[in-house]
């Protein structure tokens, strides 16, 4: 039983890292970045790139990979998403999907489809750890939980306490007013994309070391977006309960129920949420009308 609990928390942390990216981008630009999963993969491959070039330097590799991903997020916003301003939201979402295709093609072009393992290149190991209560998780499982927690605390602090964060929230809520107040909201949108890239990279780096790295990891992103929706697309706080719920349903259906349901279960949660409470657990109510 404790094992199921432990696995749920680990899986939820991974989903939370990805969902944070969705929420950050949605809050700022109202676009659903369906390429978040591929940005996670990109982060993992950046890590592999640096680790292969300078093996045995975990801190340097992780920092560089995260920085490169943040930069990628910035560039993606500037080149691809900013020209889509004013277009219907749906077209912007479609552009993010094509972005996902592009990212995957670029990764395969450079690295082919072989499964990669950056862990030995970093000179680290991933031994199992026994938790009180009998559950066993791997070291990187624990790291995932720790990193997710730290990231969320950091994001909360940033968005609530720092001036830049408050400006970002303002720009996300009412761009026109924010612009008239003198806030450079384009820069803040780009920053939110960079943060999303950063969060995705963290997820990718942790997963690549914990399990494997291959170009098709992006499918996890689709599951994580169900998490973002359940929690509320514009609520960072909602991500945590959303992730726990979706992860719990998935893990329980594999362990005790029909494992085939596990792949569909995030979407069933999503559907249920959409029918009952479309704005998620903690999202803002506004834009929804009923017939």
């Amino acid at each position, binding site marked *: 039983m404790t*094992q*199921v609990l432990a*696995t749920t928390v*680990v*899986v939820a942390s*991974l*989903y939370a890292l990805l969902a944070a990216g969705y929420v950050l981008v949605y809050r700022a630009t109202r676009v659903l970045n369906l390429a978040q999963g591929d940005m996670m993969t990109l982060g993992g491959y950046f890590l592999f790139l640096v680790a292969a070039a300078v093996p045995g330097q975990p801190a340097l590799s992780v920092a560089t990979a995260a920085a490169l991903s943040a930069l990628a997020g910035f560039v993606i916003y500037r080149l691809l998403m900013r020209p889509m301003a004013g277009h219907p939201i749906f077209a912007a979402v479609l552009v993010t999907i094509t972005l996902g295709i592009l990212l995957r*093609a670029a990764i*395969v072009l450079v690295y*082919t*489809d*072989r*499964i990669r*393992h950056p862990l*030995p290149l970093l000179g680290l190991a991933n031994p*199992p750890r026994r938790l009180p209560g009998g559950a*066993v*998780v*791997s070291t990187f*499982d624990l790291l995932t939980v720790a990193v997710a927690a730290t990231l969320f605390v950091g994001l909360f602090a940033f968005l609530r306490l720092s001036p830049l964060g408050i400006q970002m929230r303002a720009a996300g809520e009412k761009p026109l007013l924010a612009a008239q107040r003198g806030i450079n909201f384009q820069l803040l949108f780009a920053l939110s994309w960079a943060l999303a890239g950063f969060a995705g990279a963290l997820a990718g780096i942790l*997963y690549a070391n914990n*399990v*494997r790295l*291959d170009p*098709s990891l992006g*499918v*996890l992103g689709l*599951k994580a977006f169900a998490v973002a929706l359940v929690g509320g697309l514009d609520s960072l706080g909602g991500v945590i309960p959303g992730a726990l719920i979706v992860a719990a349903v*998935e*893990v329980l259906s*594999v*362990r005790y129920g029909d*494992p*085939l349901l*596990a*792949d569909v279960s995030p979407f069933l949660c999503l559907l249920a949420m959409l029918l009952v409470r479309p704005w998620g657990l903690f999202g803002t109510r506004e834009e929804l009308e009923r017939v």
Partner: protein
Amino acid sequence: MARPALMLLAALLGVTATVTPALAQYRIGMSAAITGPASSTYAPTYEAYKVYFKRVNDAGGINGQKVEIIYEDDRGEPQRAAANAKKLAEGSILMVNASTSATYKPFMTESETEKLPLLFGGGVCPREAFPPASPLIFCSTSFGSKWDSRFALGFIKEQAAGKKVKVGFAAQDIPLSRIELEFAEQLAKEMGLEPIPVVVVPGNTPDFTPVAQKLKDAGADWVLSWALWHVEVGVFEALHRIGWQGSYLLYGHQQTQDELSRLKAGNLYAFGGNTLFMENLPIHAEIANLVKGQTTHPAHYMAEGWVSAMVLEAGLKKCGWPCPKDKLATALASVSVDTRGLRGGPIEWTPDNHYRKSTYYQVYRWDSSKSVTAPVGGWTRLEIK
């Protein structure tokens, strides 16, 4: 409204017009999953073919004629495969399919309509290649459904040495894997082993621990897995992590050599039909030399494709020149190829059996005392009836 649409259509079609082929060559068409989710398994076959037949052509060709192979990417998608089949069938004497089983039907239909021999060079062999074989369907792939399970369970029984063992089965949620392991579960019962019901693993699951828990709680002494590599190994790693002490037998794909030395686990057994390159036979060195700088995948991924190319070359040699497609089909139906150590034995086809007369399996395991991947026992031979 109608006119510019027609113009646009005509322009796009004009761009895709094909060129008529030269005639004095063996013309083969190959459709492989070079990109797409399945490409890690099938793209090496495409590269092996390229290198192999480049060498053949540089040495003057077969029977004095060069071999021209047209390569198409189908990404494992049935629609592209259907279009490729039509395109490749024009003017070819044989088609090769190195792609997922979803692409088989269009090729089999095209083969039947055009009376074109069809060689499966890396994907799971369709029923039509086994006795009684369809005259046009051939398969050189090292693994085969049902025969893999027969060997695997035989190996487990041998390792159990008389003790009663509980065998668990870890299948991926693709029909191929589930059907194979459900067959294995049945067979295990008949062979006197104690099977645990098949556990199905969703392919995109982020954490394999719940699956591993299921198997551990059921008390499995051995676990057999026959699926895509990342699922096979994911379940093993999760089992290892939660402290399971049993032994794990999985089908070894191209990644076997690299992964066994990465995992360094004494209780992980990988079985397959291809000899691992670490055994360093002369043929391995030859392939490594030829492949250097020519391919994006390393040499030890090339075994499957190389054997398939060898069989095709033997068939073309036997056919002679000129070689129309019906003559090629007859030639292939009696071909016998010495795999020079890449497989456990020769590939021999008869008019009734287009898989092979006997199939050979070898098991590998990490030997921690010598810090190297080593074979476990010798080659096991199963006769295909």
